[in-house]
């Protein structure tokens, strides 16, 4: 049996967790390739026009996977960090099934449907049962996988904090969801562009989630989405150590459409630029905008 993991959306939040989990359970898996033009085009053809870019990438990746594996791994996660998720994640299992219905997709998933801390463990055990893997085996795999993800995130956070402390370059905080910033097509060109402008890109996503969510309570009381709280909290925690903020979103992201406006209204002293990525290419416009953004930062610091 072979499981196909689409390299999109929640994969970027759980990469080490999922891959270790399958490895430890003794299940073979394949990953879809990094996002390229072909995947985006396929996704755009399969999706409704108004769907957000990450979902199009998801559908494109599944289109690539569907004939190459027995099961498509597409979990449904309704709550994260004890907070509501964008409805995209609630619907993605049904969405994928209905989009590919004619091709009889076999879906493998776990379903987190409540806010309890134990929800994820229970869901994974249920999935293990479905795969006919002994319970103890799954439990062990789950613990190992969870720890791997945890250490990975801790390491990532620590090394970035060192950069924030020690770097003399202009530090630009890139505020974007994991599935945007780590995507080859969406986020990576922006990180490269920032580096080429002799600035230090700081990824908001890499900071510790618990601490950030705690900090976000000072900014917004009713912000419903856990992932957005993580990003907003990162700004709140490091606002004194950074020189500028890039709000990187994909068109038309529901949560970001509101939260970005809130961020711009709350942090009036830090230069902020909003970059929106769509299915169309053309990074030349973004390049120019980023250059003038860095000029503004330098001007503000008196370096120009």
């Amino acid at each position: 049996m072979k499981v196909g993991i689409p390299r999109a959306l929640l994969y970027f939040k759980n990469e080490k967790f999922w891959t270790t989990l399958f490895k430890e359970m003794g299940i073979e898996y394949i990953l879809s390739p990094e996002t390229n033009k072909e995947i985006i085009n396929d996704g755009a053809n399969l999706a409704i026009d108004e769907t957000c870019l990450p979902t199009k990438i998801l559908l494109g990746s599944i289109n690539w996977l569907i004939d190459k594996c027995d099961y498509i791994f597409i979990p449904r996660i309704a709550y994260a960090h004890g907070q509501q998720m964008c409805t995209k994640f609630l619907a993605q299992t049904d969405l994928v099934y209905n989009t590919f219905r004619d091709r009889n997709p076999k879906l493998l998933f776990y379903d987190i449907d409540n806010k309890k801390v134990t929800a994820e463990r229970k869901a994974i055990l249920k999935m293990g049962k479905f795969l006919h893997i002994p319970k103890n085996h799954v439990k062990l795999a789950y613990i190992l996988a969870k720890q791997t993800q945890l250490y990975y995130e801790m390491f990532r956070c620590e090394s970035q904090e060192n950069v924030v402390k020690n770097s003399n370059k202009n530090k630009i905080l890139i505020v974007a969801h994991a599935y945007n910033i780590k995507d080859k097509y969406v986020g990576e060109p922006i990180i490269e562009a920032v580096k080429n402008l002799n600035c230090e890109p700081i990824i908001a996503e890499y900071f510790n989630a618990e601490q950030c969510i705690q900090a976000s309570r000072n900014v917004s009381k009713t912000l419903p989405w856990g992932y957005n709280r993580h990003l907003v909290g990162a700004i709140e925690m490091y606002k004194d150590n950074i020189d500028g903020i890039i709000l990187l979103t994909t068109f038309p992201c529901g949560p970001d459409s509101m939260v970005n406006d809130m961020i711009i209204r709350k942090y009036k002293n830090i230069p902020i630029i909003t970059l929106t990525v769509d299915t169309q290419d053309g990074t030349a416009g973004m390049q120019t905008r980023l250059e003038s953004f860095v000029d503004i930062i330098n001007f503000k610091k008196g370096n120009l």
Partner: protein
Amino acid sequence: MINNENIACFPQWANYACAFKYICEKGFETKYIIPPPITKKTIELGSKYSPDYVCAPFKYCLGCYIEALEQGANCLMQIYGGCRLNYYGELAEVILKDMGYQFKFFNMADINFKSIKSIVEHFKIINPNFSLVKVAKSIPVMMNIIKTIDKFEDYIRLNVGFEVNEGEFEKTYNEFLQKLNNLKNGKQLKQLKKIYWKKLTNIKVNKPSKIIKVGMIGDYYTVQEPFSNYFMEKELAKFGMEIHRYMNLTNTLIHNKGKERKNVAKKYAKYNLGATANFTVAEAIDFAKNKFDGIIQVKSFGCTPEIDAMPILQNVSKDFNIPILHFSFDSQTSETGVKTRLEAFYDMVEARNKG
């Protein structure tokens, strides 16, 4: 105790303003102003100050708030829900405060419904000296107002396309709504309901034996607020169609059939899709099973739950062989475009009927 300082206001939403007015004035003993009817200016104001690609209902709400604040309202209210609606309140509050308005904000997303203390504290925003007894007494009446409105509107939707004297339904119904605005108690509501139900049912209609039946589905706000769907129901009635709509406050807030609806939708959507998407799917299946001639989905641009429901609707359409027309409204939709598409839809449905 009566509070003379606060003037409460909830954004314009279908014809429910009189129900909100009743609970504020009779329950909380606070003045309430019904916001002016939505016009082009409302949505222009709302779009001007809203983020670019936020969903259209937010823009309508913001426009309504601004117009109400100009008229003297100083205690705004917002509800909560399963999607972006949860964040409407706080963002609108920050935007309006940045614009320089002074007001209080009653945000239901902020209430912890598990703690009575939190509920009472938030109610005190509307009136610091509110009486819990009076609020509790006025709630059943408010529910009755909503139920009456929905019952009347359901009847009108089925018959307005076939009235003999044009405009009679609208005239009678508007008269009823005017009287509801100054409602004194539950008893008066009962009398009014009796009188106007008789008047409505006595209006002459001429229904042919074979009629075209159309079902309306869509996101919570757009399907209910006629301005935001370009008076779709009125346009459809002009073609002489019978319009069915399940989504209203009675069926969602008062008698919530969420579970039952989810079961209906189960074959297509196993899980909760978020917000009202399961309702949308379930209604589409119901309409299709009852041999309707067509389904129209209206939604605001970028409404995530409804977008996720669309591939499912397309499958329903294929399986039951029923046409579904999708409309996506933003602040900048052209009226003629909507009309043309409706005409084409009508022609297609009629041709299918004959063939």
